């Protein structure tokens, strides 16, 4: 069984992002980049399926500018077998990403596509679902457990108020939630071996997709700064402030 995993290059989760001075975007100049954490979980899940003998090949795909090949290499170091880079310019919105992934799905015909539920930069949470619709494949989103069973995959989903298990007919789409697994570290030997793994580059045109845009980013601003706290002398003062200033009791 072939598994396709999507990985996105995003600002490292440890970085405190800043808005650009003119408010046009987040400042990405000299900022540390990494694989989107949910995508990393997707790669881990795919690699575990391969180690369990369920998957025969794991292909990591990323869409973006040239530097995103770094994240593909990380996926290869984590255990993916080969990589595909769809080279685009500037921002691409979820619908376009989904269309490009659909192009890759048509080419590779994977039985399972695993994506992160969302990326921590745009927080859109749309690509997996859109791909499901475009490719006409069943989808199990927000997965906390994935079990392949013959021509089906059982996906336990983290829904409001509990867990829901759905059984999907393969080929299917899974998007990962935080608790699905704990990704491993890529070891130094695997980082070095990843340099030699196959990485093919396609343009959107190769996949028959036109890059269009429906969304205009109007403004990016930092969240309001939190006010400093104060110390109260005693319980009476606290109650007074909660009642009369904060008006919460």
């Amino acid at each position, binding site marked *: 069984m072939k598994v396709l995993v999507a990985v996105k290059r995003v600002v490292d989760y440890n970085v405190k992002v800043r808005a650009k001075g003119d408010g046009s975007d987040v400042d990405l100049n000299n900022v*540390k980049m*990494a694989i989107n954490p949910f995508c990393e979980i997707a790669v881990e899940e795919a690699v575990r399926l391969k180690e369990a003998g369920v998957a025969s090949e794991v292909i990591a795909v990323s869409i973006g500018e040239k530097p995103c*090949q*770094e994240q593909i*290499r*990380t996926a290869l*170091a984590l255990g993916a077998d080969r990589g595909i880079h769809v080279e685009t310019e500037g921002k691409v919105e979820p619908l376009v990403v989904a269309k490009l992934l659909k192009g890759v799905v048509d080419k590779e015909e994977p039985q399972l596509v695993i994506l992160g539920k969302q990326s921590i930069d745009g927080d859109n949470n749309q690509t997996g679902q859109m791909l499901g619709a475009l490719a006409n494949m069943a989808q199990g989103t927000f997965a906390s457990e994935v079990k392949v069973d013959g021509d089906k995959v059982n996906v336990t989903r983290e829904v409001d108020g509990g867990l829901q298990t759905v059984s999907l007919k393969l080929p299917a789409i899974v998007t990962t939630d935080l608790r699905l697994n704990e990704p491993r*570290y*890529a*070891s*130094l*030997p*695997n*980082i*070095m071996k*990843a*340099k030699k793994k196959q990485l093919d580059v396609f343009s959107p045109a190769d996949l028959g997709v036109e890059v269009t845009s429906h969304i205009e980013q109007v403004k990016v601003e930092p969240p309001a700064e939190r006010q400093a706290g104060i110390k109260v002398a005693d319980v009476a003062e606290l109650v007074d402030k909660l009642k009369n200033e904060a008006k919460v009791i």
Partner: protein
Amino acid sequence: MALDFDSARLPNPHLTESHHAWRQQLRRFIDAEIMPHADDWDEAGHIPDTLWPKAAAVGLLGLGYPEAYGGTLEGIDSWHAWIAQEELARIGAGGIPASLMVHGIGLPPVMFWGSETMKQTVAPAVLAGSKHISLGITEPDGGSDVASIRTTAVREGDSFIVNGSKTFITGGMRADWVSTAVRTGEAGARGISMLLIPTDAEGFSRTALPRKQGWWASDTATLYFDNVRVPADQLIGPENQGFWVIMTNFNRERMAMAAGMEAMARVCLEEAVTWAQQRQTFGKRLADHQVIRHKIARMKQLINATQSNIRLCFESIEADQANPGDIALLKVQASETLEYCAREAMQILGGMGYLRGNRVERIYREVRVNAIGGGSEEIMRDLAARQYGL
């Protein structure tokens, strides 16, 4: 440009994708497996046995050793090694890398000069983290004057009979083998050999040196050899050529120490700046007082100089043109930088920094071992003066 650990690193054009990936993965490993425990391990005076196999799995122990022995060598250069030293130093508890990576000084003599059988016996187990190897040069009678060591190895048939003692041996309590400097010939540098001594040999004993100013998490020991019989094929390199093995090995150790010291200085900078930007005194931020600003600027100045010097020395090593004098002076440059940065970071943190449980306080205690071990500042300057033909 900010002054945190990563931003305060000067650009290095030699770094490629595999270097960035290595830093990223190693940092994840350290942040998850070591950082949260650093203070506890330091206070407890040791690191858990389970850390070695984990460090082996991530590729840390095998960095720079041939694949045939369980290491990673193909495509590896000095920059991967520098990154490992930096990331380990970032923990801010020198005893942890000193103990975890002590094979970095114990194993190279075996790898470069040992027999194939010896390499096969020792290297795979050490690089997998299941066995340990230390380096035994220093003796109770002296460390700086390596040419005067007194531990003897006298030939008796197919064996050497070893008598004497080694002290300050890092990893000595855990070691399964010690790459040991012994006297096999005449007085002076030309009568020294390196011998691989297994610590389960009869007549071998050891005691811990547990109460130290720094490197708390590292086990340091005194070793005793009382008529220890060692097969002659355990010689590392030719008989009476040990001094050159030791001197070559020192270059590697000094580069690693310099890289670690610069990175620890950078931790001090990071911690001092963070505090100076939030602490208010006399109605303004500490960082707004000129005296403090100059301290911080000088920290960065010394760090910049040390980093540039490390890069230059690694470049010359990569080009096979290393100059031991330059490396010796780099070690001094790095320990002086660390000393200044640790001192000033402590001053800036004030009483808060004096309390145990923070990186600056720990690093402050690691300054002297770096300025003395692996060749003291005085000896480094002396060596350089000789190298430069003064």
